[in-house]
């Protein structure tokens, strides 16, 4: 019987160097995980980036991959936010067909979802919405009858609520080096 699958949110704090994403993706791939979403960006510490992965998998398998991720030299910290009380958000851009006849109706829906109109054309408009996955999906469903021409989502980013969170505190005033800083620029070209 297959182990019970669960939705996991994993946050990786990594050195900002070429090849890191490839190495991490390789570890997930080796264990047969499909990455549902992935968001990468700079963290509060210069030279370090944060990656948020969402994957589906059994608890034990995800733990194993997490341990494997620590083997990637550039990985500084891994946090599994699964089961924690978190704020999780993603951003979506939705291009929806809009004629003069139904534009008002679409804008009303956008208003309810606190989505912003970021582009208007004769026959379409682009909505920008942030929220958790359910909210974005609900909006998407409501817009479908009008004709969704394009949907783009950033993938989830997540942060635990309250306290100090998962700030890296190694007690040092270490300065992390990023690829562009002129010190060792190593890694594969990805």
């Amino acid at each position, binding site marked *: 019987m297959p182990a019970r699958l669960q939705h996991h949110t994993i946050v990786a704090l990594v050195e900002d160097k070429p090849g890191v994403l490839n190495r991490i993706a390789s570890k997930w791939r080796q264990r047969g995980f499909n990455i549902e979403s992935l968001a990468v960006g700079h963290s509060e510490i210069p030279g370090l980036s944060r990656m948020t992965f969402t994957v589906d998998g059994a608890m034990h398998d995800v733990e194993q991959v997490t341990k494997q991720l620590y083997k990637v030299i550039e990985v500084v910290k891994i946090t599994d936010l699964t089961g924690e009380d978190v704020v999780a958000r993603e951003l979506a851009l939705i291009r929806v067909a809009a004629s003069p006849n139904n534009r008002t109706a679409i804008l009303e829906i956008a208003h309810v979802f606190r989505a912003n109109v970021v582009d208007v054309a004769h026959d379409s408009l682009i909505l920008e919405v942030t929220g958790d996955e359910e909210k974005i999906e609900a909006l998407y469903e409501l817009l479908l009858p009008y004709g969704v021409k394009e949907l783009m989502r950033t993938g989830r980013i997540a942060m635990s609520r309250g306290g100090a969170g998962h700030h890296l505190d190694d007690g040092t005033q270490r300065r992390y080096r990023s690829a562009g800083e002129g*010190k060792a620029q190593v890694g594969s070209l990805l």
Partner: protein
Amino acid sequence: MKLTGAQIVMECLLREGVDTIFGYPGGANLPLYDTLKQYPQVRHVLVRHEQGAAHAADAYARVTGKAGVAWATSGPGATNLVTGIANAWMDSVPLVCVTGAVVSWLIGRDGFQEADITGITIPITKHNALVLNVEEIAPALREAFHIATTGRPGPVLVDIPRDVQQQTCEFEYPETVDLPGYQPTTKGNGRQIKRAAQLIAEAERPLILAGHGVIIARAWDQLVELAERAQMPVITTLLGLGGFPGTHELCLGMPGMHGMYWNNLAISEADLLVAVGMRFDDRVTGRLKDFAPKAKIVHIDIDPAEIGKNIAPTVPIVGDVKQVLADLISEVAPVRHDAWRAWIAELRQAHPSIVIPETDQLLPQYVIKAIYDASGPNAYYVTGVGQHQMWAAQYFWIDKPGGFITSGGLGTMGFEVPAAVGAQFADLKATVWAICGDGGFQMTSQELATVVEYELPIKYAIINNGYLGMVRQWQELFYKNNLSAVRMYQPDFVKLAEAYGLRGLRVTDRAQVAPAIDAALSHPGPVLIDFQVEEYENTFPMVPPGAALQETVDSPYAAAASDGPVRRPATQGVR
């Protein structure tokens, strides 16, 4: 003073104490080779295939405990290293591979002999790096050696484009490495160590399972001390052979698929397993859900990812095996387990597992045992993969840590031919035997040229049954003897040896075995002996694939052994 990138590579190698490089030149590492003669203190060994460079460097590392160094050019040179890198990865061997890459402006443009070797080797290296300007070479190599040799060792690859090897800069070797994400835990958790000691004190039927980690951490003295103090019998995995003296009264030999019958039964009866520097490989555990059903498990390993990977331990201890064992010993009070040891001894007598029957036929087990008996505990024994490897593991009760060199995790046929080269370079005065299969030997036999060129007195023993023996055994036992693509055409191995400049000997019956081995040992140069052994011999004991250790099938010779000398049945297997 400004140095070229190639000179910087050499300066780094010198500072890391490298005295031997195994390599092969080509277009993209020409600047490295151009620089070589300026550094006569570093010996370069020209192999005949880059896979040989990686395997030789691997064995060199296993013998010396230092990182082995392999060089190759870009593209096919680098991809030829891949099998050797994967081998080192699976067996936790420190390797630093330096590959030349195509000139930097051709990278990503499918340049001649371009291969994305850093991309290719991500899953089989502990770390790798493409160095895109000359200032980065020294830090990259400093990190490479640090990463390869610390924590759980492993291969690291540094890829340097040809133009970067030619650029110049001021050389400064970094004194420290700055790797925030890499800080291996070496000291075990004190509370867990106390819990482990408590379990040892309470155990009635304890066993130690010792793996490669004991040898890597050079913790053999601590292992003996712990085993003697708590009177715990020691089982050594394939790669752990020699980590505990084979002739010690507490040594029980190898467990697992072709391990000793008594070990597989003892593991199944034990109430405590102290696993030291091993990873519960499937060849050790058999069917996982029935492994050691009565045992609590203490798992000591430096790699946190190994803890709980296959077996959930009762007490996990992450740390350097040597340091953890030393801490554990101080917590363990002397105890005895006489009844338990007597039970195992009785089992061992009833199921002797390694019995060589009286027969006129030339049995491979007999040859392998004769080699060990004649050469003694101080020689190095290198093996390939297959039946001969398992017989060597069964019949060599290795005393010397690092004296048994084999491809464990990856199971790389052909490993033995170049690995013997690396072992001999690591200890030029030692006797080095390569126990080869006739199949694997043909995968890497071109390295005989290297052996002769460098006047290495290696003794090659081909256990020649004319088959891919282990595959044939599986076809016989599990595929209704449907022998498919396992019968091999053989060259005349004696003539082949002579063509390369080795002394070649052929042995076809039992009476010739001892004289041939003596002749090989007394000959000052390299020798190859073609032992034309019985074709259909199978390796037993055996745990059938998918079965549990409790279902071990003992050697057919063992069952009759207590009734006096065993005669081999006239026919065995289906012809």
